[in-house]
């Protein structure tokens, strides 16, 4: 006896904003952990400036396209019935 699901649908994964300047960010966070200079006033000022410059010049990436899994599930479910 086959299981019949009238409407197969999944909750699509949340599209997070793209990870720009990830390397510079991790460098700055590592500097904070190493020195404790959370406000980037002394030792980590250079790392912070590098990150800010990267964010100023990084290409603006638009919204990520939403997943179309539900469209395909509906299409294939319609055909398999």
């Amino acid at each position: 006896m086959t299981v019949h699901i009238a409407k197969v649908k999944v909750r699509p994964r949340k599209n997070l904003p793209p990870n720009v300047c990830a390397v510079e960010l991790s460098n700055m966070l590592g500097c904070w952990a190493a020195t404790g200079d959370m406000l980037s006033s002394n030792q980590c000022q250079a790392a912070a400036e590098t990150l800010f410059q990267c964010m100023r010049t990084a290409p603006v990436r638009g919204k990520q396209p939403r997943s179309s899994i539900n469209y395909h599930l509906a299409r294939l479910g319609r055909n398999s019935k």
Partner: protein
Amino acid sequence: MRPVATFNASRCSLLSCPQRIPPSFVALRCALPVLARRANSSTTDERTVNQSVALLDSIMGSSSTLDLKTSSLSDILSPPTPPTQNSTPDPSQMLIPPASDPLLHFLASSLLNHGKRARADRVVSRTLLYIHALTRAPPLPILRHALITASPAVKCISQKRSGKNVVRPAALTEKQRIRAGIHAVLAASKNKSGKTVEERLAREIIAVVNGDSKAIADKELAHKQAMVNRGNALAK
């Protein structure tokens, strides 16, 4: 702010204006009065700084509530260094100053309520006047320094993955940073003494420059959380 010729207004920087505008990227720098100036801009700023320092020295111990040593005052009031460019200035490029300081416009936009732009601009002008009255120094560099000090560099995004909340630090753009800084300063200014918004805001800005403000404490807390979760920064 009206768009200035030769650059994309949406990418303009709030914190700095160059002496010349190259076509490839933009950084607006507005330190003191917004004028079309070229090589002799720094001498006017230096003269103003020296006069302010001399004034402060002569009236030391008076009603000034700003606890600044001369060295830190000169650090704050020195004009920001322009971005280093190896190429010689192109004489065909004309420096057209913007209609208003982008940072002051942004601050007024944050104070805007029910579309009353003139009122918001007035509040900003009076805030600068209060800062000058309390410090006897040029107010704009103090305001700039305070907002930069209060602005967080990162934010933490919480996401539910595999049944648990994963905190991921993400970098902020310049506009996002300044907006967060302005909101922190405005929220912290509610606890200051003063009948008007401009007076409380001015006192809060001076407190930020002095180093004792709730805005700075909140920024440090947010940075600490980002540092603790730095392992998730590179995760997809």
